[in-house]
């Protein structure tokens, strides 16, 4: 495929065939190699063919092959002429990351770390087939779908202050729970407040290096050694079912002819079906916000119980990296409302955006980029330059390079646990095989991903954090 070099870290697929706009990839030579080994670029080109796409089909530095859209894909569509696509959001709707800061230092908790991790492991259900602590009535679930994290706070999980530091204040106001099928509700009821499995995790971390002291201070990140908690999970079975229901509804109503990949199926945004998906997706986002809110609450309670207090434990931010949102962006010199799809990409709003919390208006929103198990994660700040580069988006993680099957063949979970322990990281997991699948060798180098983000201007490096306690589903 023709790939034009714009500069060392910017590559473009020029418009050709059915493409309505060019596709653009942000990657170093090293990351480019991984992307060229699979279908990522072909998928980015397919996205560029969809009706109403504006400016470009973007690909983030951590991209890899997805279904329909690539993982690490960003595409924005005109509301009148464009489409909305469940495949452009992904199955795990509103999968995302929540970061909590604490007043503790790593030294404060070292002696109680095992106990703390055990308490969290007890209070936050994780792993395959695990149910939540509280079983909801269908009515209570519908309220969560309408109100998101706000609904969770009303029911005693956390405080109103948490909502100010969650994207959309933890509530997508366009949500319509009526568009969520009975099957999706059934899957959602037992799983609220659960972490799940696979690449989802909960980590106790410490700040390793502050790279931008001003932004770090605004985020409540004060110095090296400070303890943080990172939670990575999404909308569980409910979100997966919403995605599946609407992919099938769109196939049945609009057909599959001419689609190079069936998950590219998309409905006009203004159509009845497009609106139904959009509103049901918003309800699934609310489920994910509430899910992370409840888990964060359980973590705070565990800290209070084991360490005698959780003062200063407040949210830094909660970001979604699988979502479609209505945002205003500049097209040909004027602001236009667009439906921005981010699939495996994180919003990266700079100081100019009104949507971000007041406390962050001088530095940009916190962008949370988790690494792979046992490796560093990064906190970045959103930039105003990202608007023109990627509709204000950047990477979402490290991105896999090795199959789970191969990882299981090569690594042993117990061995990984011992290796991490030797490096001062305690690991608790429900499945050693699951741990082997998530071996850090199976992922791209997150350091390289964030370096490119920073160099290109998609997000500015603020802090590097490393795990001290890891909980895997």
């Amino acid at each position, binding site marked *: 495929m023709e790939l034009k070099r714009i500069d060392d870290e910017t590559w473009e697929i020029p418009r050709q065939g059915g493409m309505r706009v060019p596709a653009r990839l942000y990657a170093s030579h090293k990351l480019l190699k991984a992307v060229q080994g699979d279908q990522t670029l072909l998928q980015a080109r397919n996205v560029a063919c969809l009706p109403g796409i504006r400016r470009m089909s973007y690909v983030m530095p951590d991209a890899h092959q997805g279904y329909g859209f690539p993982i690490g894909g960003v595409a924005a569509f005109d509301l009148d002429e464009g489409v909305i696509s469940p495949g452009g959001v992904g199955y795990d709707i509103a999968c995302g990351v929540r970061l909590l800061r604490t007043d503790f230092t790593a030294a404060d908790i070292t002696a109680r770390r095992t106990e703390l991790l055990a308490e969290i492991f007890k209070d936050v259900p994780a792993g395959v087939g695990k149910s939540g602590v509280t079983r909801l009535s269908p009515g209570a679930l519908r309220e969560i779908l309408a109100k998101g994290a706000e609904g969770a706070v009303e029911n005693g999980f956390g405080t109103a202050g948490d909502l100010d530091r969650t994207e959309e204040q933890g509530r997508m106001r366009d949500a319509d729970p009526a568009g969520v099928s009975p099957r999706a509700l059934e899957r959602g009821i037992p799983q609220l407040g659960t972490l799940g*499995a696979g690449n989802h995790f909960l980590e106790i971390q410490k700040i390793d290096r502050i790279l931008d002291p001003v932004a770090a201070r605004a985020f409540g990140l004060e110095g090296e050694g400070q303890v943080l908690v990172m939670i990575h999970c999404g909308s569980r079975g409910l979100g997966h079912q919403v995605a599946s229901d609407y992919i099938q509804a769109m196939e049945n109503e609009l057909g599959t002819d001419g689609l190079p990949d069936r998950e590219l199926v998309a409905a006009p945004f203004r159509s009845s079906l497009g609106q139904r998906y959009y509103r049901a997706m918003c309800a699934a986002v609310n489920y994910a916000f509430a899910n992370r809110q409840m888990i964060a609450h359980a973590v705070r309670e565990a800290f209070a119980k084991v360490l005698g207090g959780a003062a200063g434990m407040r949210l830094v931010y909660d970001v979604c990296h699988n979502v479609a949102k209505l945002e205003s962006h500049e097209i040909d010199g004027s602001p236009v409302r667009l439906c921005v799809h981010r699939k495996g990409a994180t919003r990266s709003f700079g100081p100019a955006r009104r949507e971000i919390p007041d406390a962050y208006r001088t530095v940009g929103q916190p962008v949370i980029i988790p690494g792979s198990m046992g490796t560093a994660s990064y906190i970045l700040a959103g930039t105003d330059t990202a608007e023109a580069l990627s509709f204000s988006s950047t990477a979402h993680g490290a991105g896999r390079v090795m199959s789970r099957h191969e990882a299981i063949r090569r690594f042993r979970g117990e061995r990984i646990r011992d290796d991490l322990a030797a490096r001062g990281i305690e690991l608790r997991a429900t499945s050693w095989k699951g741990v082997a699948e998530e071996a850090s060798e199976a992922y791209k180098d997150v350091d390289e991903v964030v370096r490119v983000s920073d160099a290109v201007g998609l997000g500015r490096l603020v802090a590097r954090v490393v795990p001290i306690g890891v909980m895997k589903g």
Partner: protein
Amino acid sequence: MERYRILPHAADGKFRSFGRTLEEAFANAALAAASFMWDWRKIDPARSIAVEIAGRDLEQLLYRFLEEIIYVFETRRFVLAAVEGLTIEPAAEGPRLRAVLRGGEIGPETAFHGEVKAVTYNEMKIGEDCGGWTVQAVLDL
């Protein structure tokens, strides 16, 4: 005859299943999907769930059938051990599948090694070759 083969995929779960008939290849696809979560050979098939699924075409039928395995697992705590009496019949509005899922309930001894989030259409193929059927699909893990 080999029931299925797990294929390399960087992020998700790709497999190819085989059968002398389309029905057998579909039944083996369900076992392949289950194999990403638990060892179906070790499950006592004490329970049965009858399923009836319609699709607009064979691809959607496969997608829905595999999704049913996840659905009964998440909502009825049912772990698949075998698929019996699977039939696929053509109908005016698209093919229709009937089968009996045999399996057990999640217990303290059930060992899980992964979670299938969703079925995808990515690289899905259903075809007949040299006297048999092959089904290929990628699961979102």
